[in-house]
């Protein structure tokens, strides 16, 4: 096996392992789908690079612990976990699959392409009935990444994954 093939295989292996590690607050999505796994470096010191969502999100510590445990279980005890802040995480990195899972879970996913501005989503679709007739109840919700909304069509309240 040449070196290039090696890099691909370790990366693929790690991504496969991490695709089963759920976000502790929103367990319907994995840490890979959330876009916080940034890189896998296969060198003398194999390293996994992750990035936090919000600077103060308490889940960041829990996520690192779950990742560590999953890597250890898979026999990758020697792998170093490195945290990087740059470039800063954005909701644009949440995968399409992750978005679908959020919606199915009852959380409106952040519209794509609006994350860079940290603005409220221009159009928020109700994850239950699909209506865009929605209004904000509270700019802050039960976790740092969510805001509280209400659908004026089906009258159900729901969480919006904030654009970030």
């Amino acid at each position, binding site marked *: 096996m040449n070196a290039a093939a090696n890099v691909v295989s370790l990366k693929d292996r790690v991504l496969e392992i991490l695709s089963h590690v759920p976000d502790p607050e929103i367990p319907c999505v994995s840490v890979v789908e959330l876009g916080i796994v940034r890189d896998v470096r296969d060198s003398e010191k194999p390293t996994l690079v992750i990035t936090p969502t919000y600077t103060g999100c308490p889940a960041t510590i829990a996520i690192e612990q779950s990742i560590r445990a999953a890597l250890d279980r898979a026999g990758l005890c020697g792998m170093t976990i490195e945290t990087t802040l740059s470039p*800063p995480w954005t909701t644009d990195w949440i995968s399409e699959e992750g978005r679908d899972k959020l919606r199915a879970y009852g959380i409106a996913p952040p519209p794509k392409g609006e994350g860079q501005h940290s603005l409220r989503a221009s159009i928020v679709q109700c994850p239950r009935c699909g209506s865009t007739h929605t209004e904000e109840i509270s700019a802050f919700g039960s976790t740092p990444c969510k805001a509280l909304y209400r659908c004026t069509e089906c009258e159900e309240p729901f969480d919006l994954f904030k654009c970030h």
Partner: protein
Amino acid sequence: MAGEENILFHHAIRLGDDPLILAQRLSEWCGHAPMLEIDLALANIALDLFGQATHFLGLAGEVECKGRDADALAFHRDVLDFHNCLLVEQPNGDFAQTIARQFLFSNWQELLMHEIAAASELRLSAIGAKAVKEITYHARFANEWVVRLGDGTEESRARMIAGLEWMWRFTGELFDPVDGAASLKTEWDARIARTLAEAGLELPKPRRAAMGGRKGHHSEHLGHLLTEMQFLPRAYPGALW
């Protein structure tokens, strides 16, 4: 520390102390806010600010090379060694006074973080770029509440005016030519004036600025805040969850 590292250390301490102290103040609202949504909002803003403080103080500790991490710097420094601005240590007062403080601070911090995000020191700029998105959201929240209270009932308007009057004297320090960010003053003035106009409020009258926080000369409020914040790690050194 060499001269350059010494400057970076003090810079990072200031940048970390502001969000740390304000986060501690905002946390006092937890369980006491006027509405559940406000409780969540203030606690969430505090959480973001604690996160920023952890990063900036962590960097300060790294640069200092004396084995102090963010926790050591937050919990084992005395009041004279804190270099936060006086604005963030001011008491919460009522909700309008808390909003006044957040409004004046977040609009300043957002401008400052844009500048930090463009800094040549990469560790500093990474934290700045990360923080600026959160702060933009805080500023928007505070701006909206200034308008809601200022343009609300007679009582909410009177309280908003009183809150701004109380906090106004602490804003001069933010733009001090020596210890502040004087270059941000024009843009900050414009932002503040824009939101106050929308709220139907007038700019508070000019007052002599209260200064000293950046040199460790604080109002008496900071000591009380630290007593509570630092109690546990000092009473039980090395305590873990």
